[in-house]
C-alpha cells in the first residue's frame, strides 16, 4: 500500500535570498553516499554501532537458544545419564524412532494440536467479532476474555482439576443436574469415540476423555489471546472497504466471508503458525492437569491416565528427569524440533498462497 506523500518525503521550505548562495552545498550534503563509497573507518563505526544494538538480544539468543540447541545435539550422540558415557552416534535417534512410547506420545500430541489450534482460532475470531461491536461495557468484556491468559497457568490447571474431579467436581454436578451419567474426566483413559459408541479398541477410540479435558482448558486459556490479536486485525480493516461492499449490496455472512475473513487472513496465518508451534510445545498445563508436580510425586506420573495425555514434551521430560536418560531425551527433543520445523515450512508454503495482504500482491 502506498504511503501518503507527506510521510515519504520532507516538503522543502522556500529558500530566502540570504540562503541562496549556500544552496548547492546543502544540496550536496543531503545526497546519500552509496555504502561502497564511504570511507572504511566510517563504515566500521556504523557497523559496530549496529552490532552493539543487536548484541544484547543476540547474545541472549546465542546463550539460551542456539548454544543449547547445538549442545543438545552433541548430548544426543552419547549414552548420557547424569554424565557423558559411551559415544553412540545416531543410535539414540534410531532407538527413539523404534520406541512405541514415542510414537504414542506423538499421536497424543497430534490429537492435542488438532483439537486445540482450529478451536482457538475459530473461537478467538468469533469473540473478536463480538467484541468489536459497539456494545455497552465492551472494555469489561475484553478484560474478561483476556483474563485467563494473564493468570498463572499452573494455578488455573489446579482449579480446573477440581472442576474435573471425578468424585466431587463441578463438571459431574452439572451432569447430574441434567440427569446424565457422571464421568471420570481426567481419570478416564478411554477414547471419546469408544465412550460414545463402545466396542472400539483402546487407541482406535480417539483421544481420551482426559485429553479432551486438557484440550478444553487449553482452548479456554488461549481464546482471549487470539481474540485480542484478531481485534487489532479487525480494527485495521479500512471502513471504506466495508462501505463499498455494502453499497454493492453485501450484508451479514456475505460481508464476513468476502471481506472480513480474507482481510484478516494474515492474522489467521500468523496465529495458526504460532498456535501450532505452541501446542506442540505445550507442557505446563498438561503437566499440572494430569498428575505432575505432587509433593514427592514421581516425575514419570505426569501424562496419565495410562499415558493418554502424555504429549511429546512430557515424554521428553519424563525420560530426562524421571528415567535419567538425558542423551535419549535430547534425541527425542531434536526430532520434535525437526518435526516442528518441517510443519512450519509446510504451513508457510501452503498458507502463503491463501493469505490476502491489504494493498499487497496477495
Amino acid at each position, binding site marked *: 500500500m502506498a504511503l501518503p506523500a507527506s510521510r515519504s518525503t520532507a516538503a522543502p521550505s522556500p529558500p530566502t535570498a540570504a540562503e541562496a548562495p549556500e544552496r548547492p552545498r546543502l544540496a550536496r550534503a543531503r545526497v546519500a553516499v552509496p555504502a561502497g563509497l564511504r570511507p572504511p573507518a566510517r563504515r566500521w563505526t556504523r557497523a559496530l554501532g549496529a552490532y552493539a544494538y543487536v548484541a544484547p538480544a543476540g547474545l541472549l539468543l546465542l546463550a539460551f537458544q542456539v548454544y543449547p540447541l547445538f549442545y543438545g545435539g552433541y548430548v544426543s550422540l552419547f549414552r548420557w545419564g547424569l554424565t557423558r558415557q559411551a559415544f553412540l552416534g545416531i543410535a539414540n535417534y534410531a532407538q527413539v524412532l523404534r520406541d512405541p512410547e514415542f510414537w504414542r506420545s506423538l499421536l497424543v500430541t497430534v490429537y492435542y494440536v488438532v483439537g486445540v489450534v482450529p478451536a482457538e482460532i475459530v473461537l478467538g475470531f468469533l469473540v473478536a467479532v463480538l467484541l468489536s461491536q459497539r456494545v455497552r461495557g465492551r472494555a469489561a468484556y475484553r478484560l474478561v476474555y483476556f483474563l485467563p491468559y494473564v493468570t498463572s497457568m499452573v494455578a488455573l490447571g489446579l482449579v480446573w482439576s477440581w472442576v474435573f474431579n471425578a*468424585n466431587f467436581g463441578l463438571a459431574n454436578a452439572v451432569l447430574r443436574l441434567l440427569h446424565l451419567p457422571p464421568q471420570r474426566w481426567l*481419570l478416564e*483413559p478411554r477414547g471419546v469415540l469408544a465412550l460414545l459408541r463402545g466396542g472400539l479398541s483402546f487407541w482406535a477410540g480417539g483421544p481420551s476423555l482426559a485429553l479432551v479435558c486438557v484440550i478444553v482448558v487449553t482452548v479456554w486459556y488461549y481464546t482471549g489471546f487470539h481474540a485480542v490479536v484478531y481485534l487489532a486485525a479487525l480494527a485495521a480493516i479500512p471502513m471504506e472497504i466495508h462501505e463499498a461492499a455494502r453499497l454493492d449490496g453485501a450484508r451479514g455472512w456475505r460481508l464476513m466471508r468476502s471481506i472480513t475473513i480474507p482481510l484478516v487472513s494474515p492474522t489467521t496465518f500468523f496465529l495458526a503458525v504460532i498456535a501450532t508451534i505452541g501446542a506442540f510445545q505445550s507442557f505446563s498445563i498438561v503437566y499440572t492437569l494430569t498428575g505432575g508436580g505432587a509433593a514427592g*510425586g*514421581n*516425575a514419570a506420573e505426569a501424562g496419565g491416565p495410562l499415558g493418554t495425555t502424555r504429549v511429546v514434551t512430557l515424554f521428553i521430560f519424563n525420560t530426562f528427569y524421571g528415567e535419567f536418560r538425558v542423551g535419549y531425551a535430547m534425541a527425542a527433543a531434536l526430532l520434535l524440533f525437526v518435526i516442528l520445523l518441517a510443519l512450519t515450512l509446510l504451513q508457510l508454503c501452503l498458507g502463503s498462497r491463501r493469505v490476502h495482504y491489504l494493498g499487497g500482491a496477495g
Partner: protein
Amino acid sequence: MTPRTGSFIGRRQLLRQAAAAAGGAALGWWAGGLLRPGHGAARAAESPVAVAFWHGNSGPLGNILDALVSQFNATHPRYQIRSEFVGNYTALNQKVMSAVAAGTPPDAAQAGAYGAVAEYLQENLIVPVQKFVDGPDGLARQSLADIFPGFLEDNTFVVGGRPTLVSWPFNKSVMVLYYNGTMLRSLRLGVPRTWDEFVTASQRAMRAGKVTAGMGWTPGSDFFAALLLQNGGRLLSPDARQVQFQSDAGVRALAFLKDLYDRKIMYLTKQYDWQNDLVAQKICFAVSTIVSQQYIQQDLKGAWDLGVAPLPAGPRRATILFGSNGVIFAHARPEAQAGAWAFFKWWAEPQQTALWSVQSHYLPLRRSALDTQIMKHLFAQDPRQRVALDSLEYAHPMPDNVAAWVRIDPVLTDAITKAVTGLAAPRDALQDAASRANTILRG
C-alpha cells in the same frame, strides 16, 4: 594536559606503581603465611569445613531439620553443615542432575526414591558410605545392628559383587492405614485388622450414608506391592534379573484391588485428592505413609479423631518402607565427605533420631531410640505413634536400589490402573507389564 613535573605523576605511572604495591603486598602476605609455622592448621581450626547438604523437607519438617543441623554445628566445631531446601524429591533429583552437569554438585544430599541412588552409583557420582562405616570414624558392628534391618536393606546395593551400604537412612517412613476414629466409634465399628474387616467396615459406613466410599486411592505400585507381599509374592527375583509380580500372588493382589473398585468400596483419585476427601469425611479410610499424618492433622484442625493403624493383613503381614536416604558425593573434598559422614552418623544416634521422629512423625532409625525418655513420653501421650514402629518388623522397601526400577515402576502402575478400571484382566495386564519390564531389565 597537565605538564609533567617533579611533584606530579602520569596516570600510567600511577597505575603501574599501584599494581606493584598491590602485588608486593600479596606476595608478602603469602610469604608471611608460609613462614609462620602452623599457620595453615590454625586457620583450619578457626574456620570449620563447610558441607553443603541439599534436602527436600519443606515447611514444618524443614524447620525441624534446620534446628537439628544447628545443633550439630554447635556441637561439632570442625564442621559447618549448610542445609538447603531445594524442592520435593523430584525437584531435588532435577537440581542434582543440573548441578552434576554444571560440575557443582553439593557435598551431600538426601536422595529421594525413584532410583536416584542407583543412578548416582551407576555413574560413580557418590562414595558408598560403607567406606566411612568401616573407616576410623566408623560404626561398631553392634551399633550398626541396632539400626532397623529394613533401613539397611533399603540402602544396600551390590557393588563389585558384594552387598555394600551405599547410602545412609535419613528420613524413613512406613505405609499405614488412616481411619476416621470418630466415625468408626459412632458406627460401633472396630479398627480393621484384616482386609475382610476393612471391607465390612467400609460397607457399614457407606450403608449408613456417612461416606461415599471406604477409601480413595491414587494408583501406584507401592500399595499393590504391599498386597503382593501379603499374598506371598515378590516384585523382583532375588538376583533382580527378572520381575515376579505377575505371579499368582500378584494376580490375587490386583484382583482384590479391582474388587474394591468394582464394589465402589474404593474410588480412584489424582495426586493427594484422597487426603482432602478423608478430611472432608467423604471416605473413612486411607492408605499412605505415616508422615501424611502431619499434613492431614494440619487440615483437620481437630474436627474429628484421626486414627492410625497398621496396614490390614492379608494371608500374612507386610507393608512398605518409604522415605529418602543420605548420599555423599564423590567430587566433595575428603574433609567435606568426612563432615557429611559425621553428620549422618550423628543424625542416626538415639537422641537425635528420637527427636526427629517425635517432631516429624518419621521413624526413628534405630531400636535403642525407643528407650529414650522423649520417645517413651510420646508413646505414653499418644499410643498411635507406636503403630508405625510395630509395622517395621515386617516392612520392606521398594526395589529402588535396582537402577531399572525407575522405568519399570510406571509400566507396573499403568498395568494396575488398566486392571482396576476393567480395561484388562489382572493376569493379562500383569503378564504384559512383566514382559515389558523384563525387556527393560535386560537393558
